């Protein structure tokens, strides 16, 4: 099972913001969402899209506590890892 990547998150964030151009941002993964132009509304939509896309539920405090893309990706991967054994057992 492949892990969720920062690149995938940025693709989703750009879709949420309606950005047509993909610009490579230096050290963007470690910058705060606010400094990347993503407010809590954009972050809430990104969470919703990731949850639907991966079939997982992220902790409710994700919006307030996860400040950077790198931290967001860690939360998603932790959730994927937690739910993975269940999938394997079912298969």
């Amino acid at each position, binding site marked *: 099972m492949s892990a969720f990547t920062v690149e995938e998150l940025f693709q989703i964030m750009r879709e*949420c*913001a*309606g*950005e047509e*151009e993909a*610009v490579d*941002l230096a050290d963007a993964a470690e910058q705060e969402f*606010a*400094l*990347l*132009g*993503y*407010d*809590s*509304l*954009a972050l*809430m*939509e990104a969470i*919703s899209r990731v949850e639907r896309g991966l079939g997982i539920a992220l902790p409710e405090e994700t919006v307030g506590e996860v400040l950077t893309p790198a931290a967001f990706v860690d939360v998603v991967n932790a959730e994927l890892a937690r739910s993975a054994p269940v999938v394997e057992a079912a298969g």
Partner: protein
Amino acid sequence: MTGAAQALPVALLLPGQGSQHRRMAAGLYGHEPVFTEAMDEFFDAAGPEGGPLRDDWLAERPATDIDHVTRSQPLLFAVDHALGRLVLGWGVRPAALLGHSIGELAAATLAGVFAPRDAAGLVLDRIRRLSAAPPGGMLAVAASTAEVAPYLRGDVVVGAVNAPRQTVLAGPDGPLDEVDRALREAGFVCRRVPSLSAFHSPVLEPACRGAAAVFAAARKNPPAVPVHSAYTAAPLTESDIGDPAFWARQPVAPVLFWPALEGLLATGDHLLVEVGPGQGLSQLVRRHPAVRRGSSAVVSLLPARPGPPEADRAAVAAAAERITAAGWPAAPASGDRGRPSRRAAAG
């Protein structure tokens, strides 16, 4: 001179309804002389209403809710305008101004269209009218105007176009709640904007009817700096400025912030300096390709979130440093802030 010649032209961004919070910029009051003087001038011009306004601005527990139109609108106007004066006092000469909602009136005042004392009177006239309007609210939706269009009805309209996928709806509470529910059921992410009035919707139309006569009587001058209007998505023209209905209808008409920003950045790259509470406009403009690429840049004068008074002062000091680093030699170093540096501006 070489630094100044290469410096990006500065555009001031002045935020509006939704960015207000308790004690916004209060940490600068009594510390930054130019800011303090501009605030005091506003409270003085407000007459008997000035004292209660000032008290509620500085209070931890304001007597009237800061989100109420009688507090949010005059205090946003005063804080935006006073912060703009602070930056001008550093010797920064902006090439353009762009205000959101009530921020446009502050921008026009900074540009000299209205005298500050006259503008205070116009703002107070506006809030007296608006406080009589029916209650309503505003809803930010992570969606484009095209995506929300099928959900609009009655008095629920697009109140602001903030970014390609950030649209703010406005309308009376009941119908707005129903639209909110329908949008959420369809999978859209929505969030209420702090406002107890349906700004930029027809709900406020009857209340604004008499305002044109007041604007007609106010003395108006051509702007010293281009003011990019978020109502026309173009610089203010002589005919806009001379039309009382243009000003009177601003609380009813939609705010086209993103189209106005695109117009501004189409004229060239800028150092975008947000002069107002929070960093809402800074966050939005970071989505613009010119800022993403790094050819334009963003500086916020105040912290992103409400905090202690020291945080306001630290944010202003950091902003002054960034403006200096961007090639504006007239922005004084911290410690010298607030003192007009005529010599630097002349050189």
